[in-house]
């Protein structure tokens, strides 16, 4: 997601926040909820906060949790502003409810920035109400009161009252005027920026039921849903009677669905691909019966993609640059190239990859004639809430969506086809159903990271400056009018803003394989090409890459006036210098060992990474250490952000090593971890993380540390052995990890 899009969303969001917050507080600010079990009074201070008589402060986290840590970090923002002691806080997921919580989704590394202002106001509002209640109780002005650790104190008299003691009267007060709210400045933070253990850490370590796959409801039955291996095909007939006769099988039937390759369209599509549903008394009975399923497939509407043909078409397109459609240009790049004293041209490429989140898709749906309820680990539960009523022909108020923790997201759970499958199957059998995808289903019917081809050419003039920059983006397209998701070049400004002559163009080639948002879409490939290619350019003029990069970043400035989510060259140079200093950039290494640097700006985060890599004579890589310097503004949870960055490094290495999805005749060839290897512990490098204290508002950390890893490793490989890797995965160039 580009920064432009972030801004558009934030602005829309801010509007929603404002109205949403008002609604939340006015609707529930006066409600006192009594918990029946222990007869202790629980006072609700807002839609987000309730305080129990036992002192437990329950804070809601509004965005889906898929491992990015927002169930901890979002409540921390509220707790900070209300001065709740974190040890008193219990975290819950809020309901999916647009009226109170606006758009609830986990994508674009936006959970933190989209909620930052709103949740600070929620916390400050609660604090103001508690202060006012204490002021009335103690009969002193609020100005004489202070708050800390769930306690209001009157210093002069030495009296204090706990939040638990104050909550009931506070909850009955009118809402304070938003203009009167006092928000902390960064120096006053006690909680934000510290290391806080994930709120679910204990439950995870004890194997408690937390995930979508763990949901069980009374009378639950289990379903497999079998789709055509050639993506988009449809079943003509199947041995349904034989399947229905299998032990444990309750029913088997064809769902007509919508044939043809499915497309990534979260906001509008409830497309369910045609297939065969097998409903059974347990997961295994459904999976076992599936092995006996024989389907006659109609592959006429299916994708006919073939990886080798796509690669050939892309390479042919690279040779026809003159036919490409120009996206953005300035000056005369062709002439500047002719005049350049050094020129480099190279084609970079990346294959399709799968999300491979460890929890395969599943969903529990309970659909009756009057109502529907679903439990889902979707990253976009608000979209389900909006679209499911239409699919089931039910009124909106009859549909309830429960957001449940997901076992990894990475963009895979932005779409909701597994939810719609479960809903249709439950509607048909009249029982609550858990649809359970196998790993093979999950990998074969993914919305893949798009394959991409980036042809680059640049020139350096006599004075050592980059004078010409040409980029040709070759991407797959279903209709040859618009690139499939992940193949669209979005204006980046860097390095173009620093280059007098540039020319950016695109060519679309036919591809029907569904693609979607895979952690840091487009950036995850583009960063590899851009940062590797710039390093090639530095080598061509015999310049150290750090110096070359710092020089190209140039003077301190924001790349878009007034946009605090834009690239800022001072922040960029800050992380480059910090990562290089930590890594000991420039130190002499033994033969076969090298350091590689890359910087990338995405999702409003500035990140630089230096990798230390050795390469042996069989082209086997060992990544020893990775030093990361990241500037994502104010850190919320230091342990959480460090974890995201360590994980991004491992993910980046895992993906560049040997992950590729290949396609023959529209059919995915790699469908489990034996053919699609993920990095394992012995290969994990040491990761050293440094967070920059830049004083800006927080931005997300789930994505921006991923893109720089592949070019940092590629540049280190070049430093170690002199060979330039231009393909993802590296295994295509004969390297192994």
């Amino acid at each position, binding site marked *: 997601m580009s920064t432009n899009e972030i801004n558009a969303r934030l602005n829309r969001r801010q509007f929603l926040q404002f109205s949403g917050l008002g609604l939340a507080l006015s609707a529930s600010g006066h409600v006192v909820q009594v918990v029946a079990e222990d007869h202790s009074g629980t006072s609700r201070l807002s839609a987000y906060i309730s305080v129990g008589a036992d002192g437990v402060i329950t804070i809601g986290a509004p965005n889906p949790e898929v*491992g990015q840590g927002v169930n901890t970090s979002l409540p921390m923002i509220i707790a900070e502003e209300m001065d709740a002691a974190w040890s008193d806080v219990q975290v819950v997921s809020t309901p999916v409810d647009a009226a109170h919580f606006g758009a609830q989704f986990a994508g674009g590394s936006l959970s933190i920035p989209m909620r930052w202002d709103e949740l600070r106001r929620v916390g400050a509002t609660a604090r103001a109400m508690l202060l006012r209640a204490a002021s009335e109780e103690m009969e002193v002005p609020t100005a004489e009161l202070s708050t800390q650790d769930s306690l209001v104190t009157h210093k002069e008299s030495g009296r204090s009252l706990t939040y638990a003691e104050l909550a009931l009267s506070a909850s009955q007060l009118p809402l304070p005027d938003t203009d009167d709210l006092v928000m902390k400045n960064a120096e006053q933070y006690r909680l934000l920026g510290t290391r806080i253990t994930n709120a679910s*850490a204990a439950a995870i370590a*004890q194997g408690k039921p937390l995930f979508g796959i763990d949901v069980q409801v009374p009378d639950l039955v289990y379903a497999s849903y079998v789709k055509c291996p050639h993506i988009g095909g449809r079943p003509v007939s199947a041995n349904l009677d034989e399947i229905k006769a299998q032990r444990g099988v309750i029913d088997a039937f064809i769902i007509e669905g919508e044939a043809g390759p499915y497309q990534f369209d979260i906001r509008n599509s409830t497309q369910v691909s045609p297939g065969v549903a097998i409903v059974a008394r*347990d*997961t295994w009975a459904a999976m076992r019966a599936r092995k006996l399923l024989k389907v006659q497939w109609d592959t006429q509407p299916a994708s006919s993609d073939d990886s080798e043909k796509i690669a050939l078409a892309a390479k042919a397109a690279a040779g026809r640059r003159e036919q490409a459609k120009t996206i953005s240009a300035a000056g005369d790049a062709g002439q500047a190239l002719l005049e350049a004293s050094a020129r480099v041209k190279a084609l970079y490429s990346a294959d399709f990859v799968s999300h491979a989140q460890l929890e395969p898709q599943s969903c529990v749906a309970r659909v009756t004639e009057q109502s529907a309820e679903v439990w889902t680990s979707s990253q976009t539960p608000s979209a389900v809430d909006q679209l499911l009523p239409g699919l089931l022909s039910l009124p909106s108020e009859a549909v309830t969506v429960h957001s449940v923790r997901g076992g*990894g997201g990475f963009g895979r759970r932005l779409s909701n086809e597994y939810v719609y499958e479960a809903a249709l199957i439950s509607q048909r059998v009249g029982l609550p159903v858990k649809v359970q995808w196998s790993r093979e289903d999950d990998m074969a019917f993914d919305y893949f990271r798009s394959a991409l081809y980036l042809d680059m050419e640049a020139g350096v003039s006599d004075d050592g400056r980059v004078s010409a920059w040409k980029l040709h983006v070759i991407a797959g397209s279903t209709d040859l009018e618009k690139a499939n998701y992940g193949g669209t070049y979005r204006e980046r400004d860097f390095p173009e803003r620093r280059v007098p002559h540039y020319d950016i163009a695109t060519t679309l080639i036919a591809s029907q394989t569904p693609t979607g948002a895979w952690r840091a879409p487009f950036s995850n490939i583009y960063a590899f090409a851009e940062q590797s290619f710039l390093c090639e350019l530095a080598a061509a003029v015999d310049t150290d890459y750090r110096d070359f990069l710092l020089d190209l970043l140039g003077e301190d400035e924001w790349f878009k006036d007034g946009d605090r989510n834009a690239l800022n060259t001072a922040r960029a140079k800050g992380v480059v210098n910090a990562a290089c200093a930590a890594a000991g950039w420039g130190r002499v290494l033994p033969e076969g060992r090298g350091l590689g640097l890359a910087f990338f700006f995405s999702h409003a985060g500035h990140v630089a990474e230096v990798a230390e890599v050795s390469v042996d004579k069989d082209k086997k890589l060992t990544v020893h250490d990775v030093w990361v310097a990241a500037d994502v503004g104010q850190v919320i949870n230091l342990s959480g952000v460090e974890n995201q960055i*360590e994980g991004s490094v*491992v993910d980046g290495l895992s993906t560049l090593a040997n992950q590729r999805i290949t396609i023959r005749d529209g059919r995915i060839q790699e469908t489990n971890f034996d053919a699609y290897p993920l*990095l394992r512990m012995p290969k*994990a490098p040491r990761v050293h993380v440094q967070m920059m204290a830049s004083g800006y508002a927080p931005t997300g950390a789930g994505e921006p540390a991923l893109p720089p890893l592949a070019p940092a490793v590629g540049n280190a490989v070049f430093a170690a052995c002199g060979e330039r890797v231009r393909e993802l995965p590296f295994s295509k160039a004969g390297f192994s990890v």
Partner: protein
Amino acid sequence: MTLTINAIPTDLSGIDPDTPLLWALRDHLGLVGTKYGCGIAQCGACTVWLNGAPVRSCQLPVGALGDASITTIEGLAADGLHAVQRAWIEEDVAQCGYCQAGQIMAAAALLEKHTNPSDEQISVAMAGNICRCGTYVRIRKAIRSASSALQSGVRFFDPGESELAVNPANSGGMRS
């Protein structure tokens, strides 16, 4: 067909004998801490102990288990936390957390056998467990930390009296 699961004799006669232990635990016994990841013994998310040794429960039909003793994540510490679970919380290992029960079972099996394992022993013992979120750096740290606790003779912790930076109220559970 009676297995001992987490020290409790458990009658599995209502379950088809070819059912993998994984699905018997999850769908029939409500022990959902053991996870499905791949179904072909590649990812380790379904790791449990069979007579004390780590195994992949997706590959074990319940009918072939005889009168074996099974330990799942729910039974690792009957009451409280095993040193490995505690270390996982202290080091704040998890991101999504989906693989972690399997990781913990593999790590605890290693440490029950070798209280002070070498880095190489840790690598070998943990190589069968994938973490898609990439928390390996912290997993290794947590194993080292649990190893220290075990070497000083502490195997179980009462979560109530530990100085963990978590609120027991956060042990959570699913919202429904």
